[in-house]
Protein backbone atom coordinates (compact mmCIF):
# COMPACT_ATOMS: atom_id res chain seq x y z
CA UNK A 1 0.00 0.00 0.00
CA UNK A 2 1.44 3.38 -0.89
CA UNK A 3 -0.02 5.19 2.11
CA UNK A 4 2.60 3.79 4.52
CA UNK A 5 5.18 6.26 3.18
CA UNK A 6 2.95 9.31 3.23
CA UNK A 7 3.71 12.03 5.72
CA UNK A 8 0.03 12.76 5.79
CA UNK A 9 -2.72 10.80 4.15
CA UNK A 10 -5.79 12.93 3.95
CA UNK A 11 -9.14 11.24 3.78
CA UNK A 12 -12.82 11.91 4.14
CA UNK A 13 -15.85 10.03 5.36
CA UNK A 14 -19.30 10.87 4.03
CA UNK A 15 -22.12 9.63 6.24
CA UNK A 16 -25.17 9.36 4.01
CA UNK A 17 -27.34 8.69 7.04
CA UNK A 18 -26.70 12.27 8.18
CA UNK A 19 -26.82 14.00 4.79
CA UNK A 20 -30.00 16.00 4.30
CA UNK A 21 -29.13 17.25 0.82
CA UNK A 22 -29.13 20.87 1.97
CA UNK A 23 -26.41 21.96 -0.55
CA UNK A 24 -24.53 23.79 2.21
CA UNK A 25 -21.29 22.08 1.17
CA UNK A 26 -21.82 23.10 -2.45
CA UNK A 27 -22.20 26.77 -1.53
CA UNK A 28 -19.29 26.69 0.94
CA UNK A 29 -17.09 25.15 -1.73
CA UNK A 30 -18.12 27.73 -4.28
CA UNK A 31 -17.29 30.58 -1.90
CA UNK A 32 -14.01 29.09 -0.71
CA UNK A 33 -12.62 28.07 -4.08
CA UNK A 34 -13.63 31.01 -6.30
CA UNK A 35 -15.95 28.89 -8.43
CA UNK A 36 -17.91 30.99 -10.94
CA UNK A 37 -21.63 31.31 -10.52
CA UNK A 38 -23.57 28.79 -12.57
CA UNK A 39 -26.25 30.51 -14.57
CA UNK A 40 -29.27 29.04 -16.29
CA UNK A 41 -27.39 29.21 -19.58
CA UNK A 42 -24.55 27.15 -18.21
CA UNK A 43 -26.95 24.49 -16.96
CA UNK A 44 -28.80 24.35 -20.27
CA UNK A 45 -25.51 23.80 -22.07
CA UNK A 46 -24.61 21.15 -19.46
CA UNK A 47 -21.45 23.06 -18.66
CA UNK A 48 -22.31 24.16 -15.14
CA UNK A 49 -19.81 22.92 -12.63
CA UNK A 50 -19.36 22.35 -8.94
CA UNK A 51 -16.39 20.76 -7.19
CA UNK A 52 -18.79 18.96 -4.87
CA UNK A 53 -22.27 18.12 -6.02
CA UNK A 54 -25.31 16.58 -4.37
CA UNK A 55 -26.61 13.70 -6.44
CA UNK A 56 -30.31 13.15 -5.91
CA UNK A 57 -32.05 9.82 -6.42
CA UNK A 58 -35.77 9.16 -6.14
CA UNK A 59 -36.87 5.91 -4.56
CA UNK A 60 -40.37 4.52 -5.07
CA UNK A 61 -43.38 5.78 -7.01
CA UNK A 62 -45.43 8.87 -6.29
CA UNK A 63 -46.97 9.39 -3.73
CA UNK A 64 -44.96 6.75 -1.91
CA UNK A 65 -41.58 8.30 -2.68
CA UNK A 66 -38.31 9.08 -0.90
CA UNK A 67 -35.41 11.30 -1.89
CA UNK A 68 -31.86 10.01 -1.41
CA UNK A 69 -28.85 12.31 -1.47
CA UNK A 70 -25.19 11.65 -2.07
CA UNK A 71 -22.46 14.34 -2.01
CA UNK A 72 -19.85 13.51 -4.66
CA UNK A 73 -16.46 15.19 -4.72
CA UNK A 74 -13.03 14.26 -6.04
CA UNK A 75 -12.26 10.89 -4.46
CA UNK A 76 -8.48 11.47 -4.40
CA UNK A 77 -7.95 7.90 -5.60
CA UNK A 78 -4.72 6.09 -4.83
CA UNK A 79 -4.95 4.44 -8.27
CA UNK A 80 -6.29 7.54 -9.95
CA UNK A 81 -7.36 6.93 -13.57
CA UNK A 82 -6.94 10.63 -14.33
CA UNK A 83 -3.21 10.75 -13.56
CA UNK A 84 -1.58 8.48 -16.18
CA UNK A 85 -3.51 10.00 -19.07
CA UNK A 86 -2.32 13.58 -18.60
CA UNK A 87 0.19 14.38 -21.35
CA UNK A 88 1.75 17.31 -19.49
CA UNK A 89 1.94 15.88 -15.96
CA UNK A 90 -0.48 18.50 -14.69
CA UNK A 91 -2.16 16.03 -12.38
CA UNK A 92 -0.20 13.83 -10.03
CA UNK A 93 -0.29 12.26 -6.60
CA UNK A 94 1.61 14.09 -3.91
CA UNK A 95 3.18 12.83 -0.70
CA UNK A 96 0.08 13.62 1.31
CA UNK A 97 -2.22 11.36 -0.67
CA UNK A 98 -3.78 14.25 -2.53
CA UNK A 99 -4.59 14.10 -6.19
CA UNK A 100 -3.19 17.46 -7.27
CA UNK A 101 -4.19 19.51 -10.29
CA UNK A 102 -1.55 22.06 -11.31
CA UNK A 103 -3.54 24.72 -13.12
CA UNK A 104 -0.66 26.51 -14.79
CA UNK A 105 0.60 23.26 -16.30
CA UNK A 106 -2.77 22.16 -17.63
CA UNK A 107 -3.29 22.61 -21.35
CA UNK A 108 -6.91 21.51 -21.39
CA UNK A 109 -6.83 18.20 -23.27
CA UNK A 110 -9.66 16.89 -21.04
CA UNK A 111 -8.31 13.32 -21.13
CA UNK A 112 -8.47 13.25 -17.33
CA UNK A 113 -12.10 14.35 -17.32
CA UNK A 114 -13.05 11.57 -19.69
CA UNK A 115 -11.10 8.99 -17.70
CA UNK A 116 -12.59 9.90 -14.33
CA UNK A 117 -15.31 7.40 -13.40
CA UNK A 118 -16.78 9.78 -10.81
CA UNK A 119 -17.18 12.76 -13.16
CA UNK A 120 -15.78 15.18 -10.63
CA UNK A 121 -13.21 16.88 -12.85
CA UNK A 122 -14.57 20.03 -14.43
CA UNK A 123 -13.56 21.92 -17.52
CA UNK A 124 -13.48 25.70 -17.47
CA UNK A 125 -15.36 26.61 -20.64
CA UNK A 126 -15.49 30.35 -19.98
CA UNK A 127 -13.49 33.15 -18.53
CA UNK A 128 -14.72 33.25 -14.97
CA UNK A 129 -16.60 36.38 -14.06
CA UNK A 130 -18.54 37.58 -11.11
CA UNK A 131 -20.89 40.48 -10.54
CA UNK A 132 -18.72 43.47 -9.58
CA UNK A 133 -19.85 43.39 -5.96
CA UNK A 134 -18.74 39.78 -5.53
CA UNK A 135 -15.20 40.28 -6.80
CA UNK A 136 -14.20 41.57 -3.39
CA UNK A 137 -15.19 38.31 -1.75
CA UNK A 138 -12.87 36.14 -3.84
CA UNK A 139 -10.58 34.02 -1.70
CA UNK A 140 -7.00 35.31 -2.09
CA UNK A 141 -5.61 31.89 -1.12
CA UNK A 142 -7.10 30.27 -4.22
CA UNK A 143 -6.21 31.30 -7.73
CA UNK A 144 -8.92 32.29 -10.21
CA UNK A 145 -8.59 29.70 -12.92
CA UNK A 146 -8.56 30.90 -16.49
CA UNK A 147 -10.57 29.52 -19.36
CA UNK A 148 -9.56 26.24 -20.96
CA UNK A 149 -8.18 24.25 -18.06
CA UNK A 150 -9.39 21.41 -15.89
CA UNK A 151 -10.08 21.97 -12.23
CA UNK A 152 -11.41 19.95 -9.35
CA UNK A 153 -11.70 19.54 -5.60
CA UNK A 154 -8.35 19.94 -3.80
CA UNK A 155 -9.50 18.93 -0.29
CA UNK A 156 -8.99 22.69 0.28
CA UNK A 157 -5.20 22.32 0.15
CA UNK A 158 -4.87 26.04 0.91
CA UNK A 159 -6.38 25.44 4.35
CA UNK A 160 -4.10 22.46 4.96
CA UNK A 161 -1.09 24.64 4.08
CA UNK A 162 -2.32 27.45 6.31
CA UNK A 163 -2.73 25.00 9.16
CA UNK A 164 0.71 23.48 8.65
CA UNK A 165 2.35 26.91 8.70
CA UNK A 166 0.44 27.86 11.83
CA UNK A 167 1.44 24.67 13.61
CA UNK A 168 5.08 25.10 12.52
CA UNK A 169 5.26 28.73 13.60
CA UNK A 170 4.04 27.78 17.04
CA UNK A 171 6.74 25.14 17.26
CA UNK A 172 4.16 22.39 17.23
CA UNK A 173 4.13 18.97 15.65
CA UNK A 174 2.21 17.89 12.61
CA UNK A 175 -1.30 18.93 11.83
CA UNK A 176 -3.72 16.56 13.57
CA UNK A 177 -7.43 16.30 14.25
CA UNK A 178 -7.26 18.64 17.25
CA UNK A 179 -5.29 21.38 15.53
CA UNK A 180 -7.47 21.03 12.45
CA UNK A 181 -10.63 21.44 14.51
CA UNK A 182 -9.18 24.29 16.58
CA UNK A 183 -8.11 26.32 13.56
CA UNK A 184 -10.94 25.42 11.17
CA UNK A 185 -8.48 23.91 8.70
CA UNK A 186 -11.10 21.39 7.54
CA UNK A 187 -12.16 21.69 3.92
CA UNK A 188 -14.92 24.27 3.50
CA UNK A 189 -17.58 21.61 2.84
CA UNK A 190 -16.74 19.81 6.09
CA UNK A 191 -16.79 23.02 8.05
CA UNK A 192 -20.13 24.06 6.57
CA UNK A 193 -21.99 20.75 6.91
CA UNK A 194 -24.73 21.39 9.48
CA UNK A 195 -25.23 17.70 10.31
CA UNK A 196 -21.53 16.72 10.33
CA UNK A 197 -22.18 14.27 7.54
CA UNK A 198 -18.71 15.01 6.18
CA UNK A 199 -15.65 14.17 8.27
CA UNK A 200 -12.04 14.93 7.40
CA UNK A 201 -8.83 13.59 8.86
CA UNK A 202 -5.32 12.22 8.51
CA UNK A 203 -5.09 8.47 7.87
CA UNK A 204 -1.31 8.06 7.98
CA UNK A 205 -0.04 5.08 9.96
CA UNK A 206 2.19 6.85 12.48
CA UNK A 207 -0.10 9.76 13.15
CA UNK A 208 0.46 11.35 16.56
CA UNK A 209 -0.84 11.43 19.22
CA UNK A 210 -3.62 9.00 18.29
CA UNK A 211 -5.28 7.69 15.14
CA UNK A 212 -7.75 9.99 13.48
CA UNK A 213 -11.41 9.60 14.33
CA UNK A 214 -12.13 8.56 10.74
CA UNK A 215 -9.41 5.87 10.62
CA UNK A 216 -11.63 3.01 11.93
CA UNK A 217 -14.02 3.47 9.01
CA UNK A 218 -11.16 3.05 6.56
CA UNK A 219 -9.69 0.10 8.46
CA UNK A 220 -13.03 -1.64 8.25
CA UNK A 221 -13.40 -1.07 4.53
CA UNK A 222 -9.79 -2.04 3.86
CA UNK A 223 -10.19 -5.23 5.90
CA UNK A 224 -12.83 -6.49 3.47
CA UNK A 225 -11.49 -5.52 0.07
CA UNK A 226 -13.53 -5.92 -3.04
CA UNK A 227 -16.70 -7.24 -1.44
CA UNK A 228 -18.84 -4.26 -2.23
CA UNK A 229 -21.23 -2.43 -0.02
CA UNK A 230 -23.60 -5.26 0.76
CA UNK A 231 -21.16 -7.75 2.26
CA UNK A 232 -19.70 -5.76 5.13
CA UNK A 233 -21.08 -5.76 8.63
CA UNK A 234 -20.68 -2.01 8.93
CA UNK A 235 -21.93 0.66 6.58
CA UNK A 236 -18.69 1.73 4.89
CA UNK A 237 -18.05 1.38 1.17
CA UNK A 238 -16.20 3.15 -1.59
CA UNK A 239 -17.81 4.46 -4.75
CA UNK A 240 -17.41 2.13 -7.74
CA UNK A 241 -15.26 -0.18 -5.67
CA UNK A 242 -14.99 -2.75 -8.45
CA UNK A 243 -12.85 -0.32 -10.47
CA UNK A 244 -10.05 -0.59 -7.88
CA UNK A 245 -9.32 3.13 -7.91
CA UNK A 246 -8.91 3.02 -4.10
CA UNK A 247 -10.52 6.37 -3.24
CA UNK A 248 -9.55 8.36 -0.14
CA UNK A 249 -13.23 9.07 0.41
CA UNK A 250 -15.52 6.44 1.85
CA UNK A 251 -19.27 6.53 2.20
CA UNK A 252 -21.40 5.17 5.03
CA UNK A 253 -24.66 3.90 3.64
CA UNK A 254 -28.01 5.12 4.85
CA UNK A 255 -29.95 2.97 7.27
CA UNK A 256 -33.63 3.72 6.82
CA UNK A 257 -35.79 2.55 9.75
CA UNK A 258 -38.91 2.98 7.61
CA UNK A 259 -38.11 1.51 4.22
CA UNK A 260 -40.60 1.86 1.43
CA UNK A 261 -42.99 -1.04 1.10
CA UNK A 262 -41.86 -3.19 -1.75
CA UNK A 263 -38.51 -1.42 -1.64
CA UNK A 264 -36.30 -1.03 -4.63
Amino acid sequence: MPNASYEHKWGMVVDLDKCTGCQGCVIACQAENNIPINTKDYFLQRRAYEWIRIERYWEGEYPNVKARFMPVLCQHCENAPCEPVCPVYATYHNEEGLNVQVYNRCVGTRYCINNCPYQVRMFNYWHPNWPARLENQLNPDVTVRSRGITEKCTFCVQRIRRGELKVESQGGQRLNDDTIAAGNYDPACVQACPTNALMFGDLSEDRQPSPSAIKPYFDDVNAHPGHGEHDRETRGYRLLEEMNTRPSVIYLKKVDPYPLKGGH
Partner: protein
Amino acid sequence: MALAGLLATAIVAFIVVVLFMSWFSNPPFGWGNAPAQPIPFPHTVHAGPVEEGGHAIQCEFCHRNVTTGAAATVPAVEVCVICHKQVNGANAKADVAEPETLINIQRVLDKHADGRPIDWERVHRMPDHVRFVHEAHLRFLTQGEERTVTLPIGDEEPMQLPVPVQEACSVCHGDVASMTEVQPQDGQSLKMGTCLDCHRENDVSTDCTVCHK
Protein backbone atom coordinates in the same frame (compact mmCIF):
# COMPACT_ATOMS: atom_id res chain seq x y z
CA MET B 1 4.53 40.74 -52.51
CA ALA B 2 7.55 42.53 -51.10
CA LEU B 3 5.23 44.44 -48.82
CA ALA B 4 3.71 41.22 -47.48
CA GLY B 5 7.15 39.83 -46.79
CA LEU B 6 8.15 42.99 -44.99
CA LEU B 7 4.97 42.85 -42.93
CA ALA B 8 5.55 39.22 -42.00
CA THR B 9 9.13 40.00 -40.98
CA ALA B 10 7.93 42.91 -38.86
CA ILE B 11 5.32 40.76 -37.09
CA VAL B 12 7.79 37.95 -36.40
CA ALA B 13 10.39 40.45 -35.17
CA PHE B 14 7.80 42.04 -32.88
CA ILE B 15 6.86 38.68 -31.37
CA VAL B 16 10.51 37.73 -30.88
CA VAL B 17 11.22 41.05 -29.15
CA VAL B 18 8.20 40.67 -26.86
CA LEU B 19 9.19 37.10 -25.93
CA PHE B 20 12.78 38.18 -25.38
CA MET B 21 11.75 41.04 -23.14
CA SER B 22 9.31 39.00 -21.10
CA TRP B 23 11.84 36.21 -20.56
CA PHE B 24 14.81 38.34 -19.53
CA SER B 25 13.08 41.12 -17.68
CA ASN B 26 12.32 40.82 -13.99
CA PRO B 27 8.73 39.75 -13.54
CA PRO B 28 7.01 43.03 -12.71
CA PHE B 29 8.72 45.69 -14.83
CA GLY B 30 11.97 44.52 -16.25
CA TRP B 31 15.08 46.34 -17.32
CA GLY B 32 15.50 47.75 -13.83
CA ASN B 33 12.73 50.30 -14.01
CA ALA B 34 11.06 51.09 -10.73
CA PRO B 35 7.44 52.24 -10.88
CA ALA B 36 6.67 55.89 -10.20
CA GLN B 37 5.19 56.25 -6.72
CA PRO B 38 2.47 58.81 -5.93
CA ILE B 39 4.71 60.30 -3.21
CA PRO B 40 8.48 59.74 -3.41
CA PHE B 41 9.56 57.42 -0.61
CA PRO B 42 13.37 57.24 -0.21
CA HIS B 43 14.22 54.06 1.71
CA THR B 44 17.70 55.58 2.10
CA VAL B 45 16.38 58.20 4.49
CA HIS B 46 14.06 55.92 6.44
CA ALA B 47 15.92 52.62 6.61
CA GLY B 48 19.45 53.68 5.70
CA PRO B 49 22.27 53.62 8.27
CA VAL B 50 22.56 56.58 10.63
CA GLU B 51 26.12 57.39 9.48
CA GLU B 52 24.80 58.07 6.00
CA GLY B 53 21.98 60.30 7.12
CA GLY B 54 19.35 57.59 7.44
CA HIS B 55 17.24 56.72 10.43
CA ALA B 56 17.82 52.93 10.46
CA ILE B 57 14.17 52.06 11.00
CA GLN B 58 13.76 48.28 11.07
CA CYS B 59 11.97 46.73 8.07
CA GLU B 60 9.33 45.09 10.25
CA PHE B 61 8.43 48.36 11.98
CA CYS B 62 6.57 49.54 8.87
CA HIS B 63 6.05 46.21 7.05
CA ARG B 64 4.34 44.91 10.14
CA ASN B 65 2.82 41.68 8.91
CA VAL B 66 6.09 40.30 7.59
CA THR B 67 6.93 38.22 10.66
CA THR B 68 3.40 36.95 11.22
CA GLY B 69 1.68 36.48 7.88
CA ALA B 70 1.86 35.79 4.18
CA ALA B 71 2.09 39.37 2.90
CA ALA B 72 4.65 41.87 4.20
CA THR B 73 2.04 44.62 3.77
CA VAL B 74 2.56 48.30 3.03
CA PRO B 75 1.91 50.40 6.15
CA ALA B 76 -1.22 52.42 6.72
CA VAL B 77 -0.88 56.21 6.59
CA GLU B 78 -1.20 56.20 10.38
CA VAL B 79 2.18 54.47 10.61
CA CYS B 80 3.76 57.29 8.57
CA VAL B 81 2.16 59.83 10.86
CA ILE B 82 3.64 58.21 13.99
CA CYS B 83 6.86 60.00 13.03
CA HIS B 84 5.68 62.65 10.63
CA LYS B 85 3.38 64.47 13.03
CA GLN B 86 6.71 65.59 14.55
CA VAL B 87 8.90 65.46 11.45
CA ASN B 88 7.05 68.00 9.33
CA GLY B 89 9.25 71.13 9.23
CA ALA B 90 7.24 72.91 11.91
CA ASN B 91 9.21 71.24 14.65
CA ALA B 92 12.60 72.86 15.21
CA LYS B 93 14.19 69.61 16.37
CA ALA B 94 13.33 67.72 13.19
CA ASP B 95 15.77 68.83 10.52
CA VAL B 96 13.79 68.69 7.30
CA ALA B 97 15.29 71.34 5.05
CA GLU B 98 14.35 70.87 1.40
CA PRO B 99 11.07 72.58 0.50
CA GLU B 100 10.19 69.74 -1.89
CA THR B 101 10.49 67.19 0.91
CA LEU B 102 8.26 69.35 3.09
CA ILE B 103 5.62 69.43 0.38
CA ASN B 104 5.70 65.64 0.13
CA ILE B 105 5.42 65.26 3.90
CA GLN B 106 2.48 67.66 3.86
CA ARG B 107 0.81 65.47 1.24
CA VAL B 108 1.12 62.49 3.58
CA LEU B 109 -0.38 64.52 6.42
CA ASP B 110 -3.20 65.71 4.16
CA LYS B 111 -4.03 62.11 3.25
CA HIS B 112 -4.12 61.29 6.93
CA ALA B 113 -6.37 64.27 7.69
CA ASP B 114 -8.73 63.17 4.90
CA GLY B 115 -8.68 59.59 6.14
CA ARG B 116 -7.60 58.33 2.72
CA PRO B 117 -4.92 55.77 1.86
CA ILE B 118 -1.93 56.52 -0.35
CA ASP B 119 -2.13 54.54 -3.60
CA TRP B 120 1.36 53.08 -3.59
CA GLU B 121 2.40 51.23 -6.73
CA ARG B 122 3.26 47.61 -6.16
CA VAL B 123 6.92 46.74 -6.88
CA HIS B 124 7.16 42.98 -6.29
CA ARG B 125 4.15 41.25 -7.77
CA MET B 126 3.73 37.49 -7.61
CA PRO B 127 1.53 35.81 -10.19
CA ASP B 128 -1.96 35.02 -8.93
CA HIS B 129 -1.29 31.28 -8.82
CA VAL B 130 1.69 31.55 -6.46
CA ARG B 131 1.50 31.53 -2.71
CA PHE B 132 4.49 33.09 -0.94
CA VAL B 133 4.44 33.27 2.84
CA HIS B 134 6.93 35.78 4.25
CA GLU B 135 6.50 34.43 7.76
CA ALA B 136 7.78 30.95 6.91
CA HIS B 137 10.82 32.25 5.04
CA LEU B 138 11.76 34.71 7.77
CA ARG B 139 11.40 31.94 10.32
CA PHE B 140 13.94 29.91 8.33
CA LEU B 141 16.39 32.81 8.09
CA THR B 142 16.02 34.37 11.53
CA GLN B 143 15.36 31.43 13.86
CA GLY B 144 16.70 27.97 14.62
CA GLU B 145 20.14 26.60 15.31
CA GLU B 146 23.34 28.23 14.09
CA ARG B 147 24.19 26.88 10.66
CA THR B 148 25.90 27.86 7.41
CA VAL B 149 23.94 27.76 4.18
CA THR B 150 24.54 28.83 0.60
CA LEU B 151 21.43 30.41 -0.83
CA PRO B 152 21.26 30.36 -4.65
CA ILE B 153 20.11 33.97 -4.81
CA GLY B 154 21.97 37.27 -4.74
CA ASP B 155 25.77 36.98 -4.32
CA GLU B 156 25.62 33.25 -3.40
CA GLU B 157 28.16 33.64 -0.59
CA PRO B 158 27.95 31.14 2.29
CA MET B 159 25.76 32.64 4.97
CA GLN B 160 25.65 32.23 8.72
CA LEU B 161 22.13 31.69 10.00
CA PRO B 162 20.20 32.86 11.91
CA VAL B 163 20.48 36.51 10.88
CA PRO B 164 18.57 39.62 12.02
CA VAL B 165 15.36 40.35 10.14
CA GLN B 166 16.94 43.27 8.26
CA GLU B 167 19.58 41.02 6.67
CA ALA B 168 17.04 38.29 5.99
CA CYS B 169 14.95 40.66 3.86
CA SER B 170 17.95 41.69 1.78
CA VAL B 171 18.59 38.08 0.71
CA CYS B 172 15.76 38.32 -1.82
CA HIS B 173 15.01 42.06 -1.96
CA GLY B 174 18.58 43.37 -2.16
CA ASP B 175 19.86 46.18 0.03
CA VAL B 176 16.62 48.14 0.06
CA ALA B 177 18.05 50.57 2.64
CA SER B 178 20.40 51.90 -0.06
CA MET B 179 17.69 52.33 -2.72
CA THR B 180 16.00 55.63 -3.40
CA GLU B 181 13.53 53.77 -5.59
CA VAL B 182 12.89 50.15 -4.72
CA GLN B 183 13.30 47.68 -7.56
CA PRO B 184 14.32 44.05 -8.03
CA GLN B 185 18.10 43.74 -8.33
CA ASP B 186 20.28 41.68 -10.66
CA GLY B 187 20.35 38.05 -9.59
CA GLN B 188 17.13 38.50 -7.63
CA SER B 189 14.66 37.92 -10.41
CA LEU B 190 12.27 35.96 -8.13
CA LYS B 191 11.52 33.51 -10.93
CA MET B 192 10.33 29.99 -10.13
CA GLY B 193 13.81 28.58 -10.80
CA THR B 194 15.20 30.65 -7.94
CA CYS B 195 12.51 29.33 -5.59
CA LEU B 196 13.19 25.73 -6.62
CA ASP B 197 17.00 26.05 -6.35
CA CYS B 198 16.65 27.34 -2.81
CA HIS B 199 14.06 24.75 -1.79
CA ARG B 200 16.23 21.91 -3.14
CA GLU B 201 19.39 23.28 -1.57
CA ASN B 202 17.78 23.42 1.86
CA ASP B 203 15.79 20.21 1.68
CA VAL B 204 12.40 21.92 1.64
CA SER B 205 9.47 20.26 -0.10
CA THR B 206 9.19 20.98 -3.82
CA ASP B 207 5.67 19.63 -4.09
CA CYS B 208 3.66 21.86 -6.46
CA THR B 209 1.00 22.57 -3.85
CA VAL B 210 3.56 24.08 -1.47
CA CYS B 211 3.73 27.22 -3.63
CA HIS B 212 1.03 26.89 -6.28
CA LYS B 213 -2.53 27.42 -5.24
